[in-house]
């Protein structure tokens, strides 16, 4: 397309109005003498309204504007993993190289390194009929991930040439009969979902190693979850725990309008931590996008699309990808900020009327699919939400809850009591429980679902009993109910609480999760027996094996300890029963 030149008519913060160009919606334009990158977000007669991804200070009406005629794209190919990008896929190390420790404007940088050579092994053959999304060959991108080089989604034809070898991302690795040249890299517009063949049912869990999540409110691979909560309740710690321990092969972590130090923390920590699946450094499977709160808002708006496009790209290679966006509220606020500069009619709380539509389009890009090359891949999306004042009735939380299938409700009260993760087990839900039940039954334990449901019932019962306790004190409750309170307390303190900063506790495999639940329920059963033998609650809960269980979750050799603990628990309660029987005998005698 021919390049068009126009000029600036108005500048108001990140929003610039231009005349003299005839762009299509979402075309990328170069603004001003410095050629700042911007995107057309509204067209009004002869005026084009542009959101600019960089600071606009000093830019004047009359300066030139050039339409590139192309939408905002990302570069897809080997070299994405281990990278850290800003919201428009500029690598932060490159920006540092070019302009130092502070991000100045007017610098362009390619998403993928142009110099680096990759070892490409062709798997398709000359003469093969290929089409978009099919695999041409592989590149070992990192120790963890073998990158599949795909035919760009819109290409189609017969392979005229293709050869293994060492290439940069731009060199030609092969051609199609229509002359299309193939490279290790191709581009894709971020606002357009990448195509796949077919959506699959969400019947495999994304195992996160977080007990309350996997145990009570599991997320499916390809599913969607929201984690709303006030500041300090644990959104970021939970998102980071998911990024570390989820059994995804690729993780895309978007720091959207949040703290710079949090991204630095991920950058320093992830190369040191080991992926429990592959044993390689976690960074080897991770892409970071950092558009922090003080970086330009328009690029913040784009960061979410950039992230989900990268995620879809690895999905199309047949991988399970997990995407975290911390926080989607900051993304929504970026929309609001831009929208108010456009003087659009505001909807609820000043958010644009299209807020709900944008949120659902975003979450709609999650899913487990059959890819164009016939393999299975998934994108799971977990969005943090930051409701003002912690009030879930606000528009971003409400609109998100209408879309996502899993709701992990953070609770300020729990956080203040240092019950972490501060996820409220009474308000949270997962709509995947039913579809995932068979998987848990087949892969963890025959009675996983029953065990889970029983734990949930005890916790429910506790909350009902708590209401009575508030009024009359716990001594007034029947002994059976006092026991329920004690068992619920064990569930809360041993199963639900999980310390993200403890080397062992931070990650709990499903077998461990199951054993803890099962042991607590086992205690409950045996304790009931003791109770009917006349044992006082105080005696029952004083058995040492209970404390042993509480400590065992922090031990490296949990698997060997747990068997012993179960046995001890049995013997000790057996002892309590005998003692009570004797005493009872004495009394009757």
């Amino acid at each position, binding site marked *: 397309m021919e390049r068009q030149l126009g000029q600036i008519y108005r500048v108001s913060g990140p929003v610039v109005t231009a005349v003299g160009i005839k762009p299509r919606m979402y075309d990328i334009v170069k603004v001003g003498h410095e050629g700042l990158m911007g995107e057309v977000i509204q067209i009004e007669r002869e005026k084009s309204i542009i959101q600019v991804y960089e600071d606009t200070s000093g830019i004047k009406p009359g300066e030139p504007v050039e339409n590139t005629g192309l939408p905002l794209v990302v570069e897809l190919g080997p070299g994405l993993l281990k990278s850290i990008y800003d919201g428009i896929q500029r690598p932060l190390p490159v920006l540092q190289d070019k302009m130092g420790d502070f991000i100045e404007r007017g610098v362009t940088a390619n998403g993928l390194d142009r110099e680096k050579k990759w070892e490409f092994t062709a798997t398709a053959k000359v003469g093969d009929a290929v089409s978009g999304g099919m695999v041409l060959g592989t590149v070992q991108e990192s120790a963890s991930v073998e990158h599949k080089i795909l035919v760009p989604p819109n290409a189609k034809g017969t392979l005229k040439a293709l050869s293994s070898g060492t290439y940069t991302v731009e060199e030609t690795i092969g051609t199609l009969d229509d002359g299309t040249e193939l490279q290790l890299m191709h581009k894709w517009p971020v606002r357009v979902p990448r195509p796949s063949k077919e959506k699959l049912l969400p019947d495999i869990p994304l195992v996160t190693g977080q007990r309350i999540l996997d145990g009570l409110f599991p997320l499916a691979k390809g599913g969607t979850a929201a984690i709303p909560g006030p500041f300090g309740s644990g959104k970021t710690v939970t998102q980071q725990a998911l990024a570390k321990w989820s059994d995804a092969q690729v993780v895309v972590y978007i720091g959207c309008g949040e703290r710079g*130090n949090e991204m630095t923390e991920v950058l320093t920590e992830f190369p040191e931590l080991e992926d429990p699946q592959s044993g390689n450094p976690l960074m080897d499977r991770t892409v970071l996008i*950092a558009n922090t709160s003080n970086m330009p808002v328009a690029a913040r708006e784009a960061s979410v699309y950039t992230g989900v496009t990268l995620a879809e790209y690895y999905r199309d290679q047949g991988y399970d990808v997990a995407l975290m966006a911390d926080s989607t509220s*900051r993304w929504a606020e970026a929309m609001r900020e831009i929208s108010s500069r456009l003087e659009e009619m505001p909807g609820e709380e000043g958010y644009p009327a299209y807020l709900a539509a944008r949120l659902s389009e975003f979450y709609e890009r999650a899913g487990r699919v059959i890819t164009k090359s016939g393999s299975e891949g998934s994108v799971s999306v977990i969005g943090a939400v930051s409701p003002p004042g912690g009030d879930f009735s606000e528009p971003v939380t409400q609109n998100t809850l209408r879309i996502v299938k899993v709701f992990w409700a953070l609770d300020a009260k729990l956080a203040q009591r240092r019950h972490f993760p501060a996820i409220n087990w009474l308000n949270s839900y997962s709509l995947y429980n039913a579809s995932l039940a068979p998987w848990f039954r087949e892969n963890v334990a025959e009675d996983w679902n029953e065990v889970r449901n029983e734990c949930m019932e005890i916790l429910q019962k506790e909350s009902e009993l708590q209401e009575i306790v508030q009024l009359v004190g716990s001594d007034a409750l029947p002994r059976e109910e006092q026991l329920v309170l004690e068992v619920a307390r064990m569930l809360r303190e041993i199963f639900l609480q999980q310390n993200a900063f403890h080397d062992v506790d931070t990650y709990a495999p499903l077998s461990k999760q199951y054993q803890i639940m099962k042991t607590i329920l086992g205690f409950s059963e045996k304790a009931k027996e003791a109770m009917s033998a006349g044992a006082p609650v105080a005696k029952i809960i004083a058995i040492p094996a209970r404390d042993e269980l509480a400590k065992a979750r922090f031990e490296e050799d949990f698997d060997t300890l747990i068997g012993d603990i179960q046995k001890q628990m049995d013997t000790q309660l057996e002892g309590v029963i005998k003692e009570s029987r004797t005493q009872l005998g004495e009394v009757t005698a």
Partner: protein
Amino acid sequence: MSSAKEYKTITEVKGPLVFVEKTEPVGYGELVTLRLPDGSAKRGQVLDTSDETVVVQVFEGTTGIDRETGVKFLGETLKLPVSEDMLGRIFSGGGKPIDGGPEIVPDEYRDILGAAINPYSRQSPHDPIQTGISTIDANNTLVRGQKLPIFSASGLPHNDIALQIARQAKVRGEGEEFAVVFAAMGITNEEARYFMKDFERTGALKNAVIFLNLADDPAVERIITPRLALTAAEYLAYDLGKHVLVVFTDVTNYCEALRQIGAAREEVPGRRGFPGYMYTDLASLYERAGVIKGKPGSVTQFPILTMPGDDITHPIPDLSGYITEGQIVISRELHRKGIYPPINVLPSLSRLMNAGIGKGKTREDHKQVSDQLYAMYAEGRDLRGLVAIVGKGALSERDIKILEFADLFEERFVRQGRDEDRGFEDSLEIGWELLATLPENVLSRIDRKTMAKWHPKNRGKEEAMVQ
């Protein structure tokens, strides 16, 4: 600069804004000077610019501006002259020396908006700062490069606490250079004098740069005061290698100025009338705290804000809390009890604490002591509530001990003198003394090894225990 063309084409004056027409192209964010008919001058900044109209926000307020006022666009954005000589000097909220001293001979002019630190260039903060205040050092440790606000409310002694911190803050075992940058935004003359007196009394002034925008100074100027302060701080930190503590007070006044400008521009307001971009705006201040890899200095922020109506969910503390790395919450209840500093550790949090404590930094038992104190105090306070309903008689012996612990905690641990400078060890020792009043089996947050090594009983220190 002075050769710029002067326009007399003001069409509208509204709140802090002036609308000018028929100009040559003017840059967004450009600095503006206005010459009033009485000969006085004001400065402003371009908020919106188009072929037809330029909107100017006037820092010193629009009082006295009429349609005859001359407007000049200077072709550059607002910059602060920076130099080491700023130390020991006092400036207005707009950056003019007001201490009778000479103008600063600048090493350089710096744009006051400041660019964002590249996240890749940041160094994770991890050096603990000892403030000498137990509730902060033991329970909410501050680290270099952190932004940790004080959430206070009117009538509470946040200024004393800020001053005490500014006086006592140190990183142990290092002879590095400290500086304080103090930015007052809309505080009263009396408050300002209180700060200045203290800086003079303690000799802190010679290592301080002070910007004063007082209650009777124009509200709009408050928008630039903290940016001037941060520009000075960044220069001292990243160019001169100093460890800079920036104290802002009061962020609430700053936010009200933002609201005022938003209203004058007829923007769609967000919650409680504050602009929808207030999060981004506050972030452009708070995120200027940090440590940069390979650079010796650091910028640590200690912003003070007063919560309107003591409400922590009000947009000002709320949006702040979403950006800052924790918060220190001042409690009216403790203040009423006559306890200074009335810091409530329960809603307080230092998100960077874990990176700054432990062996080799403070002490190996720090985390566990802190967690245990927190847990016991929380439980003790719950029990107070219970006692109010059912009476003390209904409590078990264990509970009575914990109830008493909560009182001791407030009296011995929270309470300290205005000039009492406690070391990390001092604070932890007081913590242990208090914990030693409790039966050992309630100390569930402390593992056996730590008990054996640090519990006063095991150190032959029973005599030191609280009677």
